[in-house]
């Protein structure tokens, strides 16, 4: 499963929504995810990828999250 697909799975499970509705350009504001929701989602992704995910900057959309996680995976490899 690619990073994008894993993110879609975690978010769509959390929001109980159709995964097809989530694209790279989907923003977290579109999904009505506040900072508390983002904490839960990041923790779900940590379990999924087995790494710690602590973004310094606020991530606005799915594409930024994919890039951030890919960078972390590369650092941890």
């Amino acid at each position, binding site marked *: 499963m690619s990073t994008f697909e894993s993110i879609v799975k975690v978010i769509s499970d959390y929001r109980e929504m159709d995964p097809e509705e989530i694209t790279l350009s989907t923003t977290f504001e579109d999904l009505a995810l506040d900072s508390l929701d983002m904490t839960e989602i990041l*923790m779900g992704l940590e379990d999924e990828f087995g790494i*710690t995910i*602590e973004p310094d900057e606020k991530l606005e959309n799915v594409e930024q999250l994919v890039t951030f996680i890919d960078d972390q995976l590369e650092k941890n490899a």
Partner: protein
Amino acid sequence: MIKTPICDLLGIEYPVFQGGMAWIADASLAAAVSNGGGLGIISAMNANGEWLRGQIREAKKLTDKPFGVNIMLMSPFADEVAKVVVEEGVPVVTTGAGNPAKYMPAWLEAGIKVIPVIPSTGIAKRVARAGAAAVIAEGGESGGHIGELTTMALVPQVCDAVDIPVIAAGGIADGRGFAAAIMLGAVGVQMGTRFLVAHECNVHPNYKKKILEAGDIDTASTGRRLGHPVRSLKTPFTREYMKKEYDPNVSNEELEGLGAGALRKAAVEGDEKAGCFLAGQIASMVTKEQPAAEIITDVCTQAEEILKGACKWVR
């Protein structure tokens, strides 16, 4: 005498923290609370490093007891003040409005006890993992920026979620709230509104008067639409704000603009029309000005009596 693990951890006599209220919690109040045996906390709010340094040095002249600094992580000066607390040897840092993870390594290396204010179990777990010494679980009864859960719901769940000490905050005005916090699993309490009327608090007299005159339904939460709700006393400012908040023709930018500077107007100028008077739901239980030390002993003495009598209904 109430003694819990947080007393030994921080070197304080009573497990009572004073909230790091922006524009209110300065060196004078923090030192008075620390001298009274609690943990006084200076609010770094949105001020720069040199302002904070001045406050820390002032507090050190007024007390030799431990005190803390609250860092508002959304401040444009967060990086700067994060360094100042290390340089000035501040023993305790509390944080709010964000994730303190990036500052933790430097703070832990400096021996600082980091105690984030948290609104959920998820955030509690993350900060515990990053090395927090304790957490302050603050429910929506509090004044200022509020989370979704009440103190009653949040505190026991956070106690279940982490192994580090939990301080309860939000809706605590006296010994009853303190005793209740202990029953929920906390080992201490943080109070904001109650300390606002301390003699040593330099907030404008109008602010103190409004707290002392407040009734139980006199606070409201505004700003939910912007994603960061705030609890304050109902005033012309909040009424105006709420009208615009519910008006879809008013943009988020305009709403943000309405709020800018409103707390300062309340705390420094006592502006009863345009000021935003942050206060918790227990404001109506705060009925007299007292020295900070007396507030601490009143709350702890009452809590002790209640806890000793807590089994009276058990047959």
